[in-house]
């Protein structure tokens, strides 16, 4: 982890009518950091993440992602980030190779680069024999790992992972996190949301959103110490219980 800042957010706000989905959040994420972005359903996580990916414009506040201004340079931001979610990842009816070609093409990689990347990826995941298998024939765990690799095909500076391990078996979940560690150790910034609280503890730092605001931001160890509890799960529950506008 270096001291360079990958994401810098200050007073970022998003309003829908008179509903404030994201309420003046402020934080920095360092380059190569694994940053856990937690919050209850409806706390504003998805809205915040969409703004950071340049998919939706903030109502007010400042943000700089991968060195680019959120308002003026969202096209540059998109070129320098990767995105993966549990819901949308790869095309089921294309093969691994075809998916790679497609995503590589989107990010403007040359045929040579795509070929090289694909080769490397397949070898790394031990999927060499499966290059021409349709993605839908792969087990879920493999799909998720593959989809993470594809979201990194253009060597993004930051990768956003939206609940990447939902429903995955415990061993594959850990293999997935090993991949996240590897990416971070190569200098990629990882911005991740999850409902598994043990995964929150794998992060370098976590933030917890409640009612559109960031209520806590620190290392997992410091947070558990501060709240005087055993793990992140209890920290999370203590904070999220205070939520007024949530669904409960």
């Amino acid at each position, binding site marked *: 982890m270096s001291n360079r800042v990958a994401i810098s957010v200050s007073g970022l706000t998003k309003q829908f009518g008179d509903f404030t989905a994201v309420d003046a959040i402020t934080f920095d994420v360092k380059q190569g950091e694994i940053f856990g972005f937690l*919050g*209850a*359903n*409806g706390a504003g996580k998805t809205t915040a993440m969409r703004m950071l990916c340049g998919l939706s414009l903030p109502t007010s506040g400042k943000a700089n992602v991968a060195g680019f201004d959120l308002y003026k340079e969202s096209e540059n931001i998109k070129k320098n980030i990767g995105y993966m979610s549990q819901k949308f990842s790869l095309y089921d009816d294309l093969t691994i190779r075809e998916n790679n070609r497609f995503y590589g093409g989107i990010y403007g990689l040359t045929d040579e680069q795509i070929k090289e990347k694909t080769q490397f990826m397949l070898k790394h995941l031990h999927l060499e024999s499966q290059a021409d298998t349709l993605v839908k*024939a792969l*087990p*879920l*765990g493999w799909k998720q790992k593959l989809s993470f690799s594809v979201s990194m095909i253009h060597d993004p500076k930051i990768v956003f992972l939206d*609940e990447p391990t*939902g*429903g*995955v*078996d*415990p*061993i*594959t979940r*850990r293999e997935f*996190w*090993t991949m996240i*560690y590897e990416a971070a*150790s190569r200098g990629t910034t990882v911005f991740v949301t999850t*409902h*598994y*609280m*043990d995964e929150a*503890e*794998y992060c370098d730092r976590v933030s917890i959103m409640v009612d559109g605001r960031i209520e806590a931001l620190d290392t*997992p*160890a410091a947070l558990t110490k501060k709240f005087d509890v055993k*793990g*992140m*799960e209890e920290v*999370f*529950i203590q904070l*999220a*219980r205070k*939520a007024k506008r*949530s*669904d*409960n």
Partner: protein
Amino acid sequence: MESAVKAERVYKNFQSGKTEIEALNNISFEVERGELFGLIGPDGAGKTTLFRILTTLMIANKGNAWVDGFEVVSQYKEIRKRVGYMPGRFSLYQDLSVEENISFFATLFGTTLEENYEFVKDIYVQIEPFKKRRAGALSGGMKQKLALSCALIHRPSVLFLDEPTTGVDAVSRQEFWDLLKSLQHQGITIVVSTPYMDEANLCDRVALMQNGKIMDIDTPKGITQKFPKPLWAIIAADMYKLMHDLRSDERVDTCYPFGQYHHITFTELNQEIQSIEKTLVEKGHADLSIQKIEPTIEDCFMELMNK
């Protein structure tokens, strides 16, 4: 008294293109009346298929099953009168209001909300303030409660809940389990599936499922007691390097990250811990701490997967 749910050597295959997928492979288990029974396993373990066979939506290739004493194929009509089912996806009409959804499902089972109000009260009061709101405009936690109310409206004797807590945050999950506990006190048998291993501890008994097979069935305590080896939790300043060093050490059998710790087992049952510590310190690990711990369900699940 006969059991609430019984499955005997159930097999189910699906044809997917040229390949045959074994969704369920020799599944046998019994659920006692009034029990809260959990099917624990990741996506693709076969939980949904098993639910569909038990709720008469699918027919097994081999084997047999009974719910509330009725056979799932020949007596499916009887079963449909007395089970409650909440499928994995929120099966609600997004364009109908909370009230309309409830009364639709009530009439479907030939009853009304008024008739069974006492029964669903605990859950329904939480969504009643929003009864005029369209279901599509509800948040995740409330949709889940509405779906549960709809599944309960006809006082089922057995309740099947397929991954009710998937994608729901920790607070809503905890509340949902509290609701299940109170339902159980009213005498309903509950069969629930979940991919979250920690939820196993909230069940009376659980079946751990993986790739269409049941790896073990027992009380949560019974499962953790079967863990074959001593388990250690280890922490150091650089956890990533620690994992590499441990995994390359031949004395270490398994090493998995678990929250802020790594959980490790050794090839030798009586591995001396000082020598491991010594090696790690020599490799430059700072703030090293290692302690013996009780295994969790997740440790056991991984242990069973590796068998």
